[in-house]
């Protein structure tokens, strides 16, 4: 099992969800968790104006997606996220893939792959 943490542009969540639905949804709702984060990277901050002065905040709003997956699905999910989140400009974000040792469904207590 893997845990995927992906940082994407906020305006791409809809597209990412559409892509993920295609590859993860098997007569069931696929599962994922999202949160608002702020990112710093090669991308220049968005220009804003304050009383006539141009300013660029250091941090840019992004979304972080957390996704627990069985191994078979990792490639598909990574491809789907890339497909949905890519704009081609600097600032599209990253996908991190981490080993996941165990997963427990709180409602049932099920563990491992079938709990994902």
């Amino acid at each position, binding site marked *: 099992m893997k845990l995927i943490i992906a940082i994407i542009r906020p305006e791409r969540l809809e597209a990412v969800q559409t892509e993920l639905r295609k590859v993860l949804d098997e007569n069931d709702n696929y599962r994922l968790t999202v949160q608002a984060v702020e990112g710093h990277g090669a991308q220049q901050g968005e220009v804003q104006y304050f009383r006539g002065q*141009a300013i660029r905040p250091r941090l840019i709003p992004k979304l972080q997606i957390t996704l627990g997956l069985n191994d078979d699905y990792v490639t598909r999910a990574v491809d789907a996220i890339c497909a949905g989140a890519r704009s081609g400009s600097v600032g599209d974000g990253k996908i991190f893939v981490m080993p996941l040792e165990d997963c427990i469904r709180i409602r049932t207590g099920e563990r491992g792959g079938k709990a994902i």
Partner: protein
Amino acid sequence: MLALFAAEPPKIDSGGTAWMLMSSALVLVMVPGLALFYAGMVRRKNVLTTMMQSFVAMAVIGVQWVTVGYMLAFGQTAGGIVGWEPRLLGLWGVDWHAMYGDKGIPELAFVMFQGKFAIITPALIAGAVAERMKFSTYIVFILVWTTFVYCPLAHWVWSPDGWLFKMGVLDFAGGTVVHISAGFSALVLALMIGKRRDYLPGLATEGFVILPHNLTMTLLGAGLLWFGWFGFNAGSAVAVEFPVSGFSAALAFTTTQTCAAAAGFTWLMIEWVHNGKPTSLGLASGIVAGLVAVTPAAGHIQPWSAAILGVLASVVCFLAVRAKNRFGYDDTLDAFGVHGIGGLLGALATGIFCIYNIAGEANQGLVFGQTTQIGLQALGAATGIGMAVFGTLLIGGLLNVTMGLRCSPEEERDGQDLSVHGERGYHQDIGS
């Protein structure tokens, strides 16, 4: 129960009194308006302390005014310098059946109307030193400043015995007394207190920035200010006409509306042309700049002059605000750029456009070829600037060596809401 009052024949003008009371209430609502306007532009960690800087003026100056302030400003003159009429202390000797002059309103109504001006004026200064001034020192500062700067200045300009009044300086609703005095004091105080620790205008495009935490608050604040300003300006007809709610009031209302609208639109257009981005803060700033500039002129100029003044106000204040970035001082919320410069513009513009002078002679403005009034206006403004600068230097200097003007570096870093007031503006209630 009517019998109680029948002995005293009703000389009251009920309409004028209604308008005075309403105007006083309108000026009061400018204080929460100002609190919102300012607080929306600071960071979350200072939102409450910034709002309190306005609200505490209602409490502190509210008491000061009925105790000594009204006497100092409007009591019988002591040599034209200041009012000195002990019966007014604590309003002790003000019979509640006393009338104010020949205007058909109770004296207490006038006391209250003027008291609201005394409240909002020092609160304007707070904008220049937001996010770093020590709260206890701020309270002492506004108390002393109102007593020794505002009250004498109000006496000079608005009391029939005041020397500037006698010379014929016009200041309908407080360009000099309110906005110049607050704006220039704000500049001096901002310079004395220094920049915020993380204010780096030179790097503004490179990433170290301070952003307004909630512009909807600022817009709502601008809306309440505009609303209340009708009381501020049109209520000031109390000085010139009977009935108080008559032609002068309607004229002042009209010029106020027109100037604010023209200024709001102008600032927006300047930004659009200049940056390609017409901002909501620009629109709000223009509105406030227009309201400030028309204040001294409101009952003295024609509607079309107000429209021109509105355009000028936004051009001039926009440049003044930009100058700040060039000079590098930190007037947090542009109290100087908008109130100081806008007030100065308005004071002079009154000399340019005025349709009658203090003696009631018509067409005295520069546009009618007369130069006397604009000279007087310059004198009034210069006096206001001088009083503000020296007064603030003195009071600020004294407080600096005694109490300290600035909060501690930790308080500034962590925000004064938590460190000074023991509160946070917002709680997310995670899981409760």
